[in-house]
């Protein structure tokens, strides 16, 4: 049985999913790939937009997402942040 993901892991997984399809991924694709319920996904996407980790793009096909520089930095430094938070019991 896989371990339950913590917040940092979920954010990483969502950003990874969006990164693979930069600017072309729709919410439904994120929902399938991220293994979250619709409500949870919406909450996380809203939070990631607020933190400026992702950017919402509107087009004729509906809304899509892309990862910002801040989001890419998070992915790049994820292991360090994760190690720090787990060391100090902040997960």
């Amino acid at each position, binding site marked *: 049985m896989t371990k339950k993901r913590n917040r940092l892991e979920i954010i990483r997984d969502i950003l990874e999913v969006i990164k693979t399809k930069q600017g072309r991924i729709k919410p439904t694709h994120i929902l399938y790939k991220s293994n979250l319920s619709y409500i949870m996904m919406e909450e996380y996407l809203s939070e990631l937009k607020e933190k400026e980790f992702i950017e919402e793009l509107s087009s004729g096909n509906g809304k899509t997402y892309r990862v910002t520089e801040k989001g890419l930095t998070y992915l790049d430094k994820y292991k360090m*942040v994760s*190690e720090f938070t787990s*060391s100090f019991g902040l997960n």
Partner: protein
Amino acid sequence: MASVYYVPQWFIGFDIMLEFLFAIVTAIVAIIAARMYQISQEKNILHFSRGFLCISLSYFIWAIVNISIVKELIAGSPAVILEKLSGFWLIGIYAYLFLFIAGLVTIVYATLNIKRGDIYYLLLALPLIAIGGAYQKILIFRIVSVFLLAFIIYRELLAFMQSKKVNTLFVTLAFTFIFISHVDLIFLTMRPTAYVLSHLLELGAYALLAITLFRALKKHD
């Protein structure tokens, strides 16, 4: 009973150096946590950083107060009776008490990982009111600190049982050493060795925190 602590003559100066060292280590933890917050934007990491910053400032102020008292101690008076201090010393002690408690409360709040500002202010107000209203402020401060540290140790222990990481164990031990140092100063304050022991325990604690930081960051250079 007044709050008294006895300082062995040979330890005068060493205590101040150690307090500055504690201030530096806790400031480093605060700075690195702030950097982690910058990357992750996770509020509990920001609170953790602010908590350690308060503790760092408290040690810095305590060291300054001790520097200003040192002349009296070298002149032969082996004991500092905290209630008899006034003026600059009193402000310094109150600042130390406030900042240390604020630091511990903020770290407790960070480990709870909740987003309720009203709960934070309640957690902060209760011990400060208890200390402010007490006659033996230092004693109540130590007792409150012991309870807050016990809670932090409990949270860290839960985290260790979940993660089984050596670093988390080090952090749990670090807070345990600080806990014991405060208990020591509650019960053994009339003995000069209590003051020395308390500082040595805190040295062990902050050494463990420094090692934890080094191990956590070195892995991902």
